[in-house]
């Protein structure tokens, strides 16, 4: 893959522990994500990967630990705050707005970029209209980037799975995030779709310089894409390092041999 321009620390997670009632989901997790890198989080099902993302963008509130994002340290933050600070994400099970078109989904992704008040919107003139048109163009750039022109005005509910995943990525990109969290972006895709998605992830990273944290089961993909890999297992931090280091880490191998079906 083309040469990387990885910068300083963007996000630092320190001693995060999260539990629901007696169920301990995350146990003292600490790691960091550097500006401009692609960071993978892997691990068997139920390892707490998604929960980790949920903590990062403020949907879950950990009992212990702190998160430092762009220098600001927080114990927790409201999701919309995280969003407005430049954290966007996609979801393991597609969470698109089924009732809306591809374009509207992506436009919704830009809601933080739009400010005009109810009054102007009701009249749909002046600032409201101008704003709508500007953002439409921005949305169109994303549609073009993801090559989904053909489904621009189709309701997303009826789209094939692979495309829905793409639209969801588009919705996340629409927010022009600095940190993009991808929760199994290639789950349930055929090899061709996976290839496209990899392409897009890399392009996002190199074209927009977006920092990416992704959860993925396909080891091949992970090894190709990531600069560094974090391995979780039953809420515990198993390993953290370069793809090759992780690949050869004994604990990781054991953990995976435990559940070989998780490979690829």
């Amino acid at each position, binding site marked *: 893959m083309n040469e990387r321009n990885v910068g300083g620390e963007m996000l630092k997670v320190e001693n995060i522990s999260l539990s*629901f009632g007696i169920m301990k989901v995350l146990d003292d997790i600490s790691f960091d994500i550097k500006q401009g890198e692609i960071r993978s989080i892997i691990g068997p099902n139920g390892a707490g990967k*998604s929960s980790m993302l*949920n903590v990062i963008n403020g*949907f879950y509130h950990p009992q212990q630990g702190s998160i430092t994002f762009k220098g600001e340290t927080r114990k927790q933050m409201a999701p919309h705050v995280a969003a407005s600070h430049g954290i966007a994400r996609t979801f*393991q*099970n597609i969470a698109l707005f089924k009732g809306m078109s591809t374009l509207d989904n992506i436009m919704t992704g830009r809601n933080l970029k739009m400010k005009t008040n109810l009054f102007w919107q009701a009249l749909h003139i002046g600032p409201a209209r101008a704003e709508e048109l500007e953002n439409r163009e921005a949305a169109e750039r994303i549609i073009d980037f993801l090559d989904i022109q053909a489904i621009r005005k189709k309701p997303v509910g009826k789209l094939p799975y692979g495309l829905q995943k793409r639209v969801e990525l588009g919705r996340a990109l629409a927010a022009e995030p600095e940190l993009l969290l991808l929760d199994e972006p290639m789950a349930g895709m055929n090899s061709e779709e996976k290839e496209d998605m990899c392409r897009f992830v890399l392009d996002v990273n190199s074209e927009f310089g977006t920092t990416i944290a992704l959860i993925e089961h396909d080891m091949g993909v992970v090894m190709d894409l990531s600069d560094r890999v974090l391995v979780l297992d039953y809420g515990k931090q198993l390993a953290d390092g370069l793809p090759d280091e992780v690949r050869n880490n004994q604990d990781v191998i054991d953990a995976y041999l435990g559940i070989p079906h998780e490979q690829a």
Partner: protein
Amino acid sequence: MLFFIEVALSGLMAGVMYSLVALGFVLIFKASGIFNFAQGVMALFAALTLVGLMEKFGMPIWLAIIGTIAVMVALAWAIERFMLRPLVNQEPIILFMATIGLAYVLEGMGDILWGSDVKLLDIGIPQGASDWMLDSFNIYIEKLEIFAAGTAAVMVTFLAIFFQKTRIGRALRAVADDHQAALSVGISLHTIWVIVWSVAGIVALVAGIMWGSKSGVQFSLSLIALKALPVLILGGFTSVPGAIIGGMIIGVGEKVAEVYLGPIVGGAIENWFAYMLALAFLLFRPQGLFGERIIERV
């Protein structure tokens, strides 16, 4: 003090009656996820039928009751066949709307069949104050209310057993969780729904009898359904004990407020007080009385 206890007690009794109606809601919601707005009207309809059978056909009480039960079962069957089956897999709000439609139909039918004038319902439930309570504790309680409380208690135990012990009961609980499970028990969804609605119908009949004997059988009876709704917020749509306890809380709270708060604000607060009570409660415990916290996953 004594007065307060008296108020509280009678509130408790009234609450039991709410519980009876709420029970009907819960049964159906539990088994089919349908918010059956017609429950109140079903009570009215049942009571009307009962009275009708007794007056128009001069049936003895026991026969009339059996007859009414038969009617309610037939009704349940018709509802399943002509309303639920075609609407299977529709969004909850659609089914909710349908039950409102059903309420209209039942109301109209009741009026046409049995006339819309107020009727007295006397199936020999003892009326008047309970002398024993009056003598021993010097507290005034309607015999009817005690009787109602008793019946409610019996109902609940019966239902509890029905749910826990019988095969059908277990099937019903399974349906609540997921439909496939129910089929695996070997009972078709349709049968299950007919049963649930029949049971709800019978519960409605009991509620109808109680309220009917208390304040006569008339349209306003169908409004007791609205009284039962706050109970549901409190107890949760799916919890039988919730319905019972919730009913009592509402009953007591309402009576107390009616007596102590009512005069200050000019009375007639029973229409809304229960709701305010439930709302206030929700602010502190959104998941209701017996619901446990839901962890949302994404």
